[in-house]
């Protein structure tokens, strides 16, 4: 149990209507409703939603974003899901975990059709790597290599399978090695990005990018979610 807004909202419902009523909503593994936050390329973002009953990720996002290509669920260190696959994903921590995905903090960051998913993944990895405390040697040394690998995929200067191999090796060296799990989380997100955008990565290798146009402003930075220095550095 985490004492956040969702927990407090749920506690109020349980007190008012009783545990049996609360358990009648939601799934077996995750009783009650789920609070999620839509961010990114969504009109009026951020939008906080209460989800009751089994709902697909596709229907949740499409209600607010008529056209989108992918979403990052579970926060910056979460999992990428493309719009097609989102039809088979129920927004519920239990069933998402069963699919190897994460709802984590409930953040759903929506990527519009005019943005390059590999470029955005690389920027997110950069940002996360920049947030590391730098206490443990292997993280200090290894995480920048992960960022470089993702950047090279976005530039099209490395074969996808080679990059995936490099990230898997880094994960082997870094996972569980340090005092915190930042390296594990960053590598999981980076690998999820390369897997989800494999077609895009192959297109980049051939010198093309599937993103339809150039977006007006950096993704997520517009909402102050990524640091200002990053906006300026762009």
């Amino acid at each position, binding site marked *: 149990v985490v004492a956040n807004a969702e927990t407090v909202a749920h506690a109020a419902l349980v007190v008012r209507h009783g545990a049996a009523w609360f358990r009648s909503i939601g799934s077996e593994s995750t009783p009650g409703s789920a609070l999620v936050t839509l961010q990114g390329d969504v009109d009026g973002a951020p939008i906080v939603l209460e989800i009751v009953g089994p709902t697909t990720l596709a229907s949740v996002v499409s209600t607010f974003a008529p056209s989108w290509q992918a979403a990052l669920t579970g926060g910056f260190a979460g999992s990428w899901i493309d719009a097609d696959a989102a039809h088979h994903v129920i927004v519920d921590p239990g069933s998402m975990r069963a699919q190897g995905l994460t709802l984590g903090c409930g953040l759903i960051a929506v990527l519009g059709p005019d943005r390059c998913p590999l470029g955005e993944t690389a920027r997110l990895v950069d940002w996360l790597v920049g947030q590391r405390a730098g206490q443990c*040697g292997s993280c200090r040394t*290894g995480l920048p290599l992960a960022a470089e690998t993702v950047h090279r995929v976005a530039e099209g200067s490395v074969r996808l399978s080679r990059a995936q191999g490099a990230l898997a090796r880094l994960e082997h060296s870094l996972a569980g090695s340090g005092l915190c799990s930042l390296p594990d989380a960053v590598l999981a997100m980076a690998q999820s990005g390369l897997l989800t955008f494999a077609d895009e990565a192959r297109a980049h290798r051939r010198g093309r990018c599937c993103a339809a146009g150039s977006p007006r402003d950096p993704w997520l930075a517009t909402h102050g979610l990524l640091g200002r220095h990053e906006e300026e550095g762009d």
Partner: protein
Amino acid sequence: LTSDEAFRIEVDAARCDGWGMCAVVLGEHLSLDEWGFARSDGRTLEGGRIGRRARRAAACCPNQALLLVPVTGRVGAE
């Protein structure tokens, strides 16, 4: 840690600077990752002989990054 107490070796990753001497002294339980930082196999060790060598490995670290943690009770004995 008494001389025949069961223990395991932990590496304080924030202290380790990759000198690598511990892996020379106790290579069967301490390895170096691809950048030279130490990792312990985390196994429970017992006996005066291995205890002495583990203490030597810990003593030769300039950063005092090795911890010999007493293991009380059997973990995973069932």
